[in-house]
């Protein structure tokens, strides 16, 4: 298949449409705006609907509605806008409405937002953190698949480098296997028959046909996320077997760290790298194994220390864990600061190793 030179936002839009996404709603906010623009240009031609909503709250709830009707649907923003969407994301997780949320973030400060969430109730959001544009294309289609497979909202956590870098990519439909039929969808097919369907967070059902109720329903939801946790963990790693130093990083930072560690390895340093691909579920057992021989586990993330919590929970000895990242934002506040740079990462790893 021939490759097109596409900006990340355009590549993700094309990939979402290839995955069957037919509804998109959002409110512009840099660096998410490019995805909304591309969706508005491309989705109608594919027979879909793209709406520039009046707010993020409206965008996510429109998406919830389209998804409840059985369509593959998505919304997005950067972390600042997704903060406004938390209630709807929690509701969708608890009433089992599958859709995709694209967090085209300004930095890595939304790890807690993605993995812990800000809504109420016992829910989790599967979060995919691509390292570059080609992986974002893959993750976009995987996200729709996982959402339908588990009837749950799924987050793709991108960043300005993924949104704005142009790369030669080919976009085709990826096949991740079958997903369950949407026999629950509120598609109007049973209206007026006395068998109308219901999507409800409390699951109390109708007077004529009572549902399981909140206690049973929410326990079933909790069990579902417990079952997803071991099933959907994804990660990449290299040079871990004899590594004295293991460097953990996600997203673009994971790509930068892998680049630097590969170089240090070639120079004879006993360093390895580990990149969680799913942030939730966090690939804890794989990290534990990768860190088995490591005297120190360095965490490079562009925030004040968020993923480091999950690293500490999973390595054999949490006293070996050390943060080498930090908050780093450009003057505009819209993209990474100077820390997202291979020479600086190299220097920080070498300082920690000495």
């Amino acid at each position, binding site marked *: 298949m*021939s*490759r*097109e*030179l596409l900006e990340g936002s355009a590549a993700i839009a094309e990939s979402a449409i290839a995955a069957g996404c037919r509804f998109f709603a959002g409110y512009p906010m840099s660096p998410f705006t490019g995805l909304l623009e591309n969706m508005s240009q491309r989705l109608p031609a594919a027979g879909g609907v793209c709406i520039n909503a009046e707010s993020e709250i409206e965008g996510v709830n429109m998406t919830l509605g389209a998804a409840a009707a059985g369509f593959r649907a998505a919304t997005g923003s950067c972390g600042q806008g997704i903060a406004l969407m938390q209630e709807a994301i929690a509701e969708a997780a608890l009433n089992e409405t599958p859709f995709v949320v694209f967090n085209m973030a300004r930095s890595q400060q939304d790890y807690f937002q993605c993995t812990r969430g800000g809504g109420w109730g016992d829910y989790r959001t599967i979060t995919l953190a691509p390292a*570059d544009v*080609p992986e974002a294309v893959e993750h976009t289609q995987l996200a729709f698949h996982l959402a339908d497979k588990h009837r749950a909202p799924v987050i793709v956590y991108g960043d300005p*480098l993924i949104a*704005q*870098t*142009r*790369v*030669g990519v080919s976009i085709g439909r990826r096949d991740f296997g079958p997903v369950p039929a949407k026999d629950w969808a509120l598609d109007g097919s049973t209206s007026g028959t006395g068998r109308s369907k219901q999507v409800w967070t409390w699951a109390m059902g109708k007077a004529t046909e009572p549902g399981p109720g909140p206690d049973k329903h929410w326990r079933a939801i909790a069990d579902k996320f417990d079952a997803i946790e071991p099933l959907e963990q994804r990660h990449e790693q290299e040079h871990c077997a004899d590594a004295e130093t293991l460097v953990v990083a996600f997203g*673009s930072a994971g*790509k*930068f760290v892998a*680049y630097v560690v590969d170089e240090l390895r070639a120079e004879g340093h006993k360093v390895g790298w580990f990149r969680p691909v799913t942030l939730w579920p966090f690939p804890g057992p794989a990290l534990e194994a990768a860190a088995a021989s490591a005297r120190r586990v360095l965490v490079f993330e562009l925030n004040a220390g968020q993923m480091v919590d999950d690293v500490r929970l999973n390595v054999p000895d949490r006293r070996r864990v050390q943060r080498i990242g930090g908050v780093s934002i450009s003057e*505009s506040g819209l993209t990474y600061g100077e820390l*997202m*740079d*291979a*020479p600086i990462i190299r220097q920080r790893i070498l300082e920690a190793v000495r």
Partner: protein
Amino acid sequence: MERELIVSGIGGQGIQLLAKTLALAATREGRYAMLSADYGGEMRGGPSKASVVVGDEPLRALPVLPSAWSAILAHHRFSESIVDRIRPGGPVVVNSKLVDTSVLRADLVVHPVDAGAIAVEVASAQAVGFVLLGAYNEVTHMVSNEALVAAMTELLPPYRRQHAPANARALAAGAAALAGVA
């Protein structure tokens, strides 16, 4: 093999368009390309930088290049941080009236081109970026000249199609300025 180019200039010199043209030409030749752009809010006069990586296999390069094989310097302003990242021996095409080549590192292979004068002579002042790109491609052979012209034409919006012949002349004149150099 991956080859990296960093382009540095100021807003209005056509930096972003020349980088996009090269990346698209490489893509149309069936190769892997990556284009990272970095420019401020100001459209004219502010810092404008871009990097292009071209390779025959999936690229390993980072979107923020730790170092680069080659460079195009269109303006002296904002170029210092770029120059530090060019690897020794790398070809550097320089807009000679606006960049003082005497301050550049001695381990670089510098190719001065009076791109402003050439652009005015064969096309217009706005074509300075294409003169530099034509000159750069002459010394690096990154892509074929035909692919460059085709990519330039493809990138023009319909209301600017009339500039395609002038831009093609700018590309050719840039190449002629460095013909036989490398």
